[in-house]
């Protein structure tokens, strides 16, 4: 959700009136209240997570404590002969996710462009795409492991989870191109390739960014699920490993890092979106 903030005063060079300043203050107060509430919510969650297990109201064996996360993290930083450093695990997951959504975007755009180019192809493939999109792709984790091996299956799962929804989203974006803009290009004698590159693609940039947003989250899901099964590296593996030896500290630390990783990626895309939209 983007917010419209600081709408410009229309053509006024007057000194701001007292009423306007009061309105500005109220706006600012409003904003601070929301931010404060958000922070308070997080704080309440953390406090409950710390206090309830310590008071033995819930079993700490299953939840760990927030205060245990940092020491666990520091401990996991150290690489041992049996276990890579947590930074290596994180890097492995991030890399696979970035490769996953980049591949999904590239392939998604290419496939959507092909479907746009050959309407007949779309009409044939439409039901299969819809079914493929609705399929629970995680059902393929064991099969991908057999087909692709330990490391490739992670990329495969990441791609499988994000590709179909990407194709459908981008294709819909292409189809939503204003037909009059296409007609305009045609009046200048534009070829189909020119219509694609000069009208359809640049006009679909907002859709591409929306698809990217969806994709980042889905790719991360694919990578973590893939790592559960097959890897000896990655945060998904660490979660699996930690739960098998009943060290919830490890599990919770890995999950917290996942939360941070996905927030950072989401922020990066929001920033990209703002940068692109400012140019329009």
């Amino acid at each position, binding site marked *: 959700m983007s917010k419209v903030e600081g709408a410009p005063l229309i053509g006024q060079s007057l000194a701001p009136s007292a009423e306007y300043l009061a309105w500005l203050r109220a706006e600012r107060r409003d904003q601070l209240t929301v931010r404060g509430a958000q922070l308070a919510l997080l704080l309440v969650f953390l406090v409950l997570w710390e206090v309830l297990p310590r008071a033995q109201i819930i079993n700490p064996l299953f939840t760990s404590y927030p205060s245990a996360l940092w020491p666990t993290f520091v401990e996991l930083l150290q690489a041992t002969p049996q276990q890579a450093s947590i930074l290596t695990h994180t890097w492995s997951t991030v890399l696979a996710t970035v490769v996953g959504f980049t591949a999904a975007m590239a392939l998604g755009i290419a496939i959507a462009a092909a479907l746009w180019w050959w309407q007949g192809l779309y009409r044939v493939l439409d039901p299969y795409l819809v079914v493929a999109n609705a399929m629970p792709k995680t059902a393929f984790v064991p099969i991908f492991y057999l087909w692709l091996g330990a490391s490739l299956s992670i990329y495969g799962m990441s791609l499988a989870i994000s590709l179909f929804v990407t194709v459908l989203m981008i294709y819909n974006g292409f189809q939503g191109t204003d037909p009059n803009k296409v007609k305009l290009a045609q*009046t200048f*004698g534009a070829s189909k390739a020119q219509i694609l590159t000069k009208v359809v693609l640049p006009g679909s940039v907002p859709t591409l960014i929306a698809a990217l947003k969806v994709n980042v989250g889905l790719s991360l899901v694919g990578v973590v699920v893939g790592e559960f099964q097959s890897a000896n590296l990655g945060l998904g593996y660490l979660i699996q490993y930690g739960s098998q030896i009943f060290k919830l500290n490890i599990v919770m630390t890995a999950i917290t890092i996942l939360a941070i990783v996905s927030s950072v990626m989401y922020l990066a895309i929001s920033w990209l979106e703002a940068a692109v939209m400012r140019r329009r």
Partner: protein
Amino acid sequence: MVGSRSNTSAVPPKLELRDVALRYFGREGETEALRGISLSIAAGEFVAIIGQSGCGKSTLLSLISGILRPTGGAVLIDGRPVAGPSRKVGYMLQQDYLFEWRTILENAVLGAEIQGLDMAAARQRATALLTRYGLGQFLNHRPRQLSGGMRQRVALARTLVTEPDIVLLDEPFSALDSQTRLALADEVADILRRERKTAILVTHDIGEAIGMAERVIVLSRRPGQVKSDRPIRFATPNGARLSPLAARGTPEFNGYFNTLWQELEVHVEG
């Protein structure tokens, strides 16, 4: 030059339509949009085509521009049949359809870019045109920063940058408010006359047609057929052409208006 419409002369007319027909096909059946349209338009002529909505006016322009092929008859430009979009024809659509991801200057050179023209020369031409239309300081602005009238001027520049001989105008002012509409009609008529373009204006505004064109063609209701084709003349001391706004003040204007109104057979239903 005006009215030299004979087919017997050695030089073929700028634009000729011979018995043009168009049918649309759809699941529910076929629709006859145009039937037996024959027209001849001389170089430099400014013709208006009026008719009620749905009479095939815009379809006629699409046929002339070559983005639609007639299902019967032929469209000829300079005596040669139209086989597709031609560089000789520029088309101004009902709205500006400026691309929001391009600057004003980049929008103005879109046609030149698609047609593979020399881009340095095209940019120069676009800059000159936009400056002449009072948009010189907006070259690097985005379309959303401009008003409707300014945007439609950019669209005109975009049409003229590719230097077409024939300019098709499909109700190009219909999306504008009435003051801007009158002012811009004056301006556009003036620009097209000075550049000696052959112009075909499609509109449902009778006043706009009389004011801008020297010949008005009335299309009947679907299937569109030529119902009448009459020259528009104003008695001026030196025979000079009146601006569309000035034409509205003449006694002839009302006469033409009433005649055309009757020919349009407007029936208000309900």
